[in-house]
């Protein structure tokens, strides 16, 4: 540990924590007060640099901070009290962990002398969160506090990013010590590799240049690693097809002719077929998740060569055997790859690549995302399509919840820029949509933020309409209301003989009245011809939160679909 700069004044632990947050440039601290963090709230009151955002449930605090981090390049920050405050935050923490999002969570803890005594609102925060954080700390001595905070932010943002929790007992918040805030930390046990091995990169390039049926598959790592420009350059230089995972959408422009759509369980026919039939696969910042390749047994092919670029070595050869592993920051690796490609004379075989594109064109001809455009009932896909058409030229962010609506949003909204599509891909957390929208709107006050959700998901964190009111956050909620937990119903239809056990949402609230009761604008839309005017009106209301309750076709399913455990070429099409 190096201490390179600091101030020498005796400060309380609470003051130190706030100074650390200020030094880290934290704009918003999402949180909820409670007994064990009151000294910290007292310090929040006394300063103006860090703005506290009071949510209505700790889960939403983490989601909002997570979305703030996803839509910016910064670390999200959260403050919660001990015991139930921490346990409420766990879903948010696990969500951020699964998608590698940098968030620092500060939790209050009972005083050190009471730890282990089953004190009021005591929970072993470090123990409870251990499986779903990148790292966590219990600060037992105020002298360790500043350095621990520095480590927390450093760990959260570097290497493979992730959530880091700092648990601070109440007596540590009130104890005093000299304040030194180190400008940098070095930890002997933590040295993420940034630069990719140039020999491996050369080998990878060689394979790509010899490929007859090449494919480029990229994930959230490209978005988090800010490598979209480098990726675009490489894909254009090679002339190969590119697909994004759900997490990677926007990492490559969706309207670019070399984009073949999202892949995976609900990916396009052409993306999945190209993925399954390619001879050289370049995987970048993607981890061969089960929702992406299905069962690895079905994905395995002796003659397919796989190149995998990832900052986390444990993601490489975890689910599929990799021929050329490249550990490093995706941006650095892509820059090096572009450099080597430009420096060399070799280019891909134009005849082979043309034949491959012709084949992809045939697959594309299946028009796998088609749906009934003359329906008398609102088709959910049409709402997302209309949403895209009306908002594509705006400074636009789209958050989603989890379920059928999420997949339709991913399939029908064309994301051309990274960090514009904010959703829970890894953990698949229902309820994230609204708090995500709040976090994004705070980070980008002048941008337009829409939350595509469903009537089941939205109800899991609907109390945050109150937070939206308090901070006047004019997000636009697109509720695709089919009176079912749609994805659950779809699976029950396919795999459980149409037995819709508990997937029917009886006793739904009147969303228009509910929204109005929070002081927002509500709309109900139940005819296809009203979809566009409603969206137009909602997006023209710049200063209002508008809840659009679209009453959609109850029977609509998400296609294509690769049933769980099957191979990518075993898709169910419409």
């Amino acid at each position, binding site marked *: 540990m190096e201490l390179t700069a600091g101030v020498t004044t005796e400060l309380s632990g609470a003051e130190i924590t706030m100074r650390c947050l200020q030094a880290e440039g934290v704009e918003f601290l999402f949180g909820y007060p409670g007994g064990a963090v009151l000294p910290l709230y007292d310090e929040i009151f006394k300063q103006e640099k860090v703005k506290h955002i009071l949510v209505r449930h700790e889960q939403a605090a983490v989601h909002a901070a997570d979305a703030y981090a996803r839509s910016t390049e910064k670390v999200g920050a959260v403050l919660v009290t001990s015991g139930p405050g921490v346990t409420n935050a766990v879903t948010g923490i696990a969500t951020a962990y699964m998608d590698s999002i940098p968030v620092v969570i500060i939790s209050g803890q009972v005083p050190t002398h009471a730890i282990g005594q089953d004190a009021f609102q005591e929970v072993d925060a*470090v*123990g409870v969160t*251990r*499986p779903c954080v*990148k*790292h966590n700390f*219990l600060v037992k001595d105020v002298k360790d506090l500043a350095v621990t905070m520095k480590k927390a932010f450093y*760990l959260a943002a570097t290497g493979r990013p992730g959530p880091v929790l700092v648990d601070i007992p109440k007596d540590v918040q009130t104890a005093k010590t000299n304040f030194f805030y180190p400008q940098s930390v070095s*930890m*002997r*046990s*933590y040295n993420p590799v940034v630069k990719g091995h140039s020999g491996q990169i050369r080998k990878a390039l060689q394979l790509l240049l010899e490929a007859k049926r090449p494919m480029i598959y990229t994930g959230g790592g490209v978005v988090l690693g800010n490598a979209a420009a480098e990726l675009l350059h490489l894909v254009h230089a090679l002339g190969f097809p590119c697909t994004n995972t759900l997490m990677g959408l926007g990492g490559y422009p969706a309207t670019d002719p070399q984009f073949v759509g999202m892949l995976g369980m609900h990916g396009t026919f052409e993306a999945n077929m190209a993925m399954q039939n390619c001879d050289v696969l370049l995987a970048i910042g993607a981890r061969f998740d089960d929702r992406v390749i299905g069962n690895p047994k079905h994905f395995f092919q002796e003659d397919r060569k796989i190149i995998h670029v990832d900052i*986390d*070595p*444990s993601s490489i*050869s*975890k689910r599929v*055997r990799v021929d050329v592993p490249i550990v490093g920051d995706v941006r650095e690796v892509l820059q090096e790859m572009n450099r080597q490609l430009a420096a060399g004379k070799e280019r891909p075989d134009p005849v082979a690549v043309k034949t491959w594109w012709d084949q992809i064109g045939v697959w594309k001809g299946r028009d796998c995302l088609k749906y009934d455009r003359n329906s008398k009932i609102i088709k959910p896909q049409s709402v997302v399509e209309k949403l895209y058409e009306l908002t594509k030229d705006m400074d636009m962010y789209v958050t989603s919840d989890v379920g059928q609506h999420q997949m339709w949003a991913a399939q029908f909204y064309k994301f051309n820029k990274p960090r514009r599509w904010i959703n829970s891909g890894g953990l698949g957390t229902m309820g994230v949509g609204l708090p995500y929208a709040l976090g994004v709107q705070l980070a980008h006050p002048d941008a337009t933020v829409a939350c595509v959700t469903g009537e089941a998901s939205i109800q899991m964190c609907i109390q945050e309409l109150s937070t939206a009111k308090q901070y006047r956050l004019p997000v636009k909620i697109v509720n695709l209301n089919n009176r079912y937990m749609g994805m659950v119903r779809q699976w029950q239809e396919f795999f459980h003989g149409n037995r819709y056990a508990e997937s029917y949402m009886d006793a739904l609230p009147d969303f228009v009245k509910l929204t109005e009761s929070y002081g927002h604008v509500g709309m109900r839309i139940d005819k296809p011809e009203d979809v566009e005017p409603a969206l137009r009106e909602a997006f023209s209301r710049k200063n209002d939160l508008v809840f659009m309750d679209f009453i959609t076709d109850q029977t609509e399913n998400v296609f294509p679909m690769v049933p769980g455990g099957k191979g990518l070429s075993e898709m169910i099409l419409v």
Partner: protein
Amino acid sequence: MRHIISLLMENEPGALSRVAGLFSARGYNIESLTVAPTEDPSLSRMTVVTSGSDDVIEQITKQLNKLVDIVKVVDLSGGDHIERELMLVKVRASGKDREEMKRMADIFRGRIVDVTDKAYTIELTGTGSKLDAFLGALEQGVILETVRTGASGIGRGERILKV
């Protein structure tokens, strides 16, 4: 296949549970686990005996390396190494059995470290299979109690695990 993995980690509270939690969360097997501080008080050394295919062992090593507290990881089974386990066995020993028990301990290079009228406590070190062999060589019923440490391992010759 059986593997013996040695690792150095920060001597900090909770480090052990991070390792144990990693194994249980990912469904890896722990055959034995020993841990103690090293000559550098800021570091602990842990020896984990586990088993699995090459792919599983590769993942275990990578996942261990990913833990922030862990400084270094080596798979000792990748080369020549020395492995020892300590066992204390309390056996029934009275009358003429006492001589026999003493002889048996000597054959296995064990030492009797506690004596009463009716029992001996024997200390034995060696590989797990040697300790198993000793237990196997004893007559059923004479064993009153056993306690074993689990394996510790170190590389042979110049192979050193150090920061």
